[in-house]
């Protein structure tokens, strides 16, 4: 690969030299000299189905939606743990005492992008009634919106009190409602645009956002800076804001999104400087950037490519089926505790993630409000002696008399190897494990029917609220719901029902801590690890910070244009 790349670079130099030589002669007259200017170039790893907020359910559609559209709220780009801040709302909403009515003030002077659907093609000012229209559009059965779930069953009524005031009435108090409002699906659209463009609205976005669509084709989407975008500033009151703190955003005049589905072309394009950052580091290329010494490789350092890593809002775990007679229930608690103690995560982190993961003590990952770095799960520390002692105390010295347990997992190579590692770990305890692998739909359908005895799985947070993790052990969420371990503990459930609708704060965290104690003691799961998200950025790409929930990071990115041009970032294109 190195060899090939060097060759490609040489070819690039040759081409450049030829172009320079040919230019005065006029041969290149038809081929305009390419000046990239202040353009961001990004690789999207899936085709974009739509740029309509009502229909973009998948990640990359949402990325495109967020370029053009905004909602009431968003997450602060830099703050961790993630923090909600107003976007089109002037401030955070007033919430009524019973937690059912949210009152928003809309920012003044926000205009829709200039577009032919408005009189004189000049964007109209945003009003509260636009939100009423947009939210009702999601709920309209005729629209068959993929994002209906955001409000369906949760919102009773959306009302514009006046041009600047919006009230949302909920069916019942909902602690995570504000998180739902940050999602691209809850963006505001203009009725004129929807009605003018009809079906074509999917590829003709008219929003209030930082970028305006210039060109849409299945393989490339080009955005230009929205000329009528209001003054927005880069976050300033946060540490790590850097030299751009308080400067108007967006920095880029243009964003070019190339759709590149395959891993290797995306990787090679990035390495040649055709893209300013690489979103998803192909697994097979990890070794090329991340050495066994847990440092970026020399090649990476020489080329001044930064490897960013941040904890993903997820955790992996091995779930016991709590309804299974061999491993579930209170009578087998000792067995689950012993198995948890006998499972050492450290070699997995090393072998399968090259150190790009951290041991999970509990279900709240770093970055999520309520994450407690000081918490140590007593059954998560690797202690084989203690584990053996537990089995012996319960009449199973060296695991004698414990029936073979089937462990189910996905059939891809890594998951199978992790399962083999689990099997070997349990063999130290004398517990026999049989591995059974399946495809994802197959495994999921077995889990839904409560069939597996135990299985390896992971959870990615939908929004940064610890409740999204705690609900996984809530009794009434049992399979086919998200409580796939079918864990039932009346005290845990009572605490959950109390804590779930509450706002994040000390009181709620106290309840969560009690629930944690119960769940840790019962061991419905053996906790695995928190994975790391990785990104590669060229040194000319500034302000990149891994954000698990922000879709339009391009708004905040700045390219050091002079530097990029000097470095031959022009290659290709």
């Amino acid at each position, binding site marked *: 690969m190195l060899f090939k790349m060097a060759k490609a670079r040489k070819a690039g130099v040759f081409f450049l030299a030829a172009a320079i030589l040919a230019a005065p002669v006029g041969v290149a007259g038809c081929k305009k000299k390419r000046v990239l200017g202040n353009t961001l170039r990004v690789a999207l790893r899936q085709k974009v189905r739509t740029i309509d907020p009502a229909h973009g359910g998948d990640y990359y559609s949402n990325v495109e939606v967020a370029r053009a559209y905004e909602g009431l709220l968003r997450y602060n780009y830099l703050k961790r743990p993630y923090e909600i801040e107003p976007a089109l709302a002037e401030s955070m909403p007033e919430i009524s005492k019973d937690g059912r009515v949210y009152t928003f003030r809309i920012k003044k002077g926000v205009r829709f992008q200039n577009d032919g659907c408005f009189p004189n093609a000049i964007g109209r000012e945003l009003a509260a009634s636009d939100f009423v229209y947009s939210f009702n559009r999601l709920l309209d059965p005729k629209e068959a919106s993929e994002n209906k779930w955001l409000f369906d069953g949760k919102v009773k009524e959306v009302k514009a009190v006046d041009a600047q005031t919006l009230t949302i009435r909920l069916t019942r108090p909902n602690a995570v409602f504000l998180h739902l409002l940050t999602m691209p699906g809850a963006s505001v659209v203009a009725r004129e645009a929807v009605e003018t463009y009809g079906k074509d609205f999917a590829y003709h976005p008219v929003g209030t956002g930082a970028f305006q669509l210039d060109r849409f084709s299945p393989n490339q989407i080009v955005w230009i800076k929205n000329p009528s975008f209001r003054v927005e500033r880069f976050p300033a009151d946060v540490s790590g804001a850097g030299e751009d703190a308080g400067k108007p955003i967006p920095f880029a005049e243009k964003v070019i999104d190339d759709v590149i589905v395959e891993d290797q072309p995306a990787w090679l394009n990035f390495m040649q400087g055709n893209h300013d950052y690489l979103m998803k580091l192909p*697994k*097979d*290329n*990890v*070794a*090329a950037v991340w050495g*066994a010494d847990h440092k970026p490789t020399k090649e990476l350092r020489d080329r001044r490519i930064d490897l960013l890593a941040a904890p993903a809002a997820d955790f992996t775990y091995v779930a016991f089926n709590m309804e299974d007679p061999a491993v579930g229930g209170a009578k087998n608690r000792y067995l689950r505790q012993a198995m948890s103690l006998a499972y050492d995560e450290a070699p997995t982190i090393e*072998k399968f993630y090259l150190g790009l993961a951290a041991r999970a003590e509990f279900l709240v990952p770093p970055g999520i409000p309520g994450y407690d770095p000081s918490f140590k799960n007593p059954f998560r520390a690797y202690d084989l002696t203690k584990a053996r002692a537990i089995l012996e105390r319960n009449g199973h010295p060296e695991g004698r008399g414990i029936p073979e347990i089937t462990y189910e997992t996905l*059939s*891809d*190579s*890594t998951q*199978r*190897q992790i399962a*083999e*590692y689990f*099997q*070997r770990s349990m063999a130290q305890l004398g517990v026999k494990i*049989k*591995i*059974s*692998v399946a495809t994802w739909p197959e495994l999921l359908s077995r889990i839904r029917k409560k069939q597996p005895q135990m299985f390896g799985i992971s959870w990615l947070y939908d929004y940064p609220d610890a409740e999204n993790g705690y609900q996984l052990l809530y009794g009434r969420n049992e399979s086919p719901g998200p409580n796939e371990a079918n864990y039932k503990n009346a005290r845990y459930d009572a605490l959950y029902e109390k804590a779930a609708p509450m706002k994040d704060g000390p009181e709620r965290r106290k309840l969560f801590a009690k629930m944690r104690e119960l769940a840790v003691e019962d061991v419905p799961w053996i906790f695995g690890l928190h994975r790391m998200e990785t990104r590669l950025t060229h040194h000319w790409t500034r302000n990149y910070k891994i954000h698990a929930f922000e879709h339009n990071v391009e708004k905040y990115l700045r390219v050091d244009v002079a530097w990029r041009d000097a470095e031959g970032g022009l290659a290709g294109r």
Partner: protein
Amino acid sequence: MNGEEQEILLKEEASFAPKSLWLDAWRRMRRDRLAVASLVVIALYTLLALAAKLGFIATPWDAEVGTAYAAPSLASLKTIFGTDIFGRSVLHKVIHGTRIAMSVGLVTSLIAIPIGVTLGALAGYFGGLVDEAIVWFYTTLSSIPSIMLLVAFTYVLGKGIFSVYIALGVTGWIGLARLIRGEFIKHKHREYVIAAESIGAGHVKRIFRHILPNVSHIVIINFSLQFQTAIKSEVILSYLGLGVQGQPSWGVMIDDSKLELARGVWWQLSAATLAMFFVVLAFNIFGDALRDALDPKLKKG
């Protein structure tokens, strides 16, 4: 000695010591060095598989013999092909992979051949409705892409080596059935069959006592080809995660190496593919040599 004399001599030899088809074939094959070498390779694999099965060598296969991903070294036999992610000996895994592969080859052939022979013989011998029914059946079966059929079988029967035997066995007989059917159509009106009929031999006797021995060389050739097809299919199934579970297999080893290659671990892939390469090659060469030796049309050559 010119060619003519040689031929006469050979004829004389033949007339003095009459040889059966099999002895004759064996004599002709012995002269083919490559075929003999292939036979030796196959015998070696069989011995290795048997020894591993009986626990004489490479036990236990999943013991740690060194550090993870140790490169091949001559320090000890166990690490001659290096170690895998858990520090297990790749040599031991290859040997146990051999055991799995050979058993799959053998068992599936033992399932496929009786089915293929019986159905092919019935179709060819009786013709008419029987023929149409059987031909319809196997054409339909063969029109389903075989890998899809195998996947479907393992889903129905559950995963594991037993399903692999069954799946490969009940899908692998079609080629043989076709050949046998053709031969039976050719043979059933030959004089020796009519003669047998005229002295009162029934259908069963005519099929199994008279015609079958005359087409049995096809079965033998097919056996050696079926064997290596089954080995390849087992590797593919295991690679896809549908084959053997919790046991070493060349397919699983190749699957592992997908991840290892990026970090420069090439030995597991090499060991598994070479092991497979040699046995498949040996079976192919041997199968060809068998055909040359057994086909009466090539006898002059």
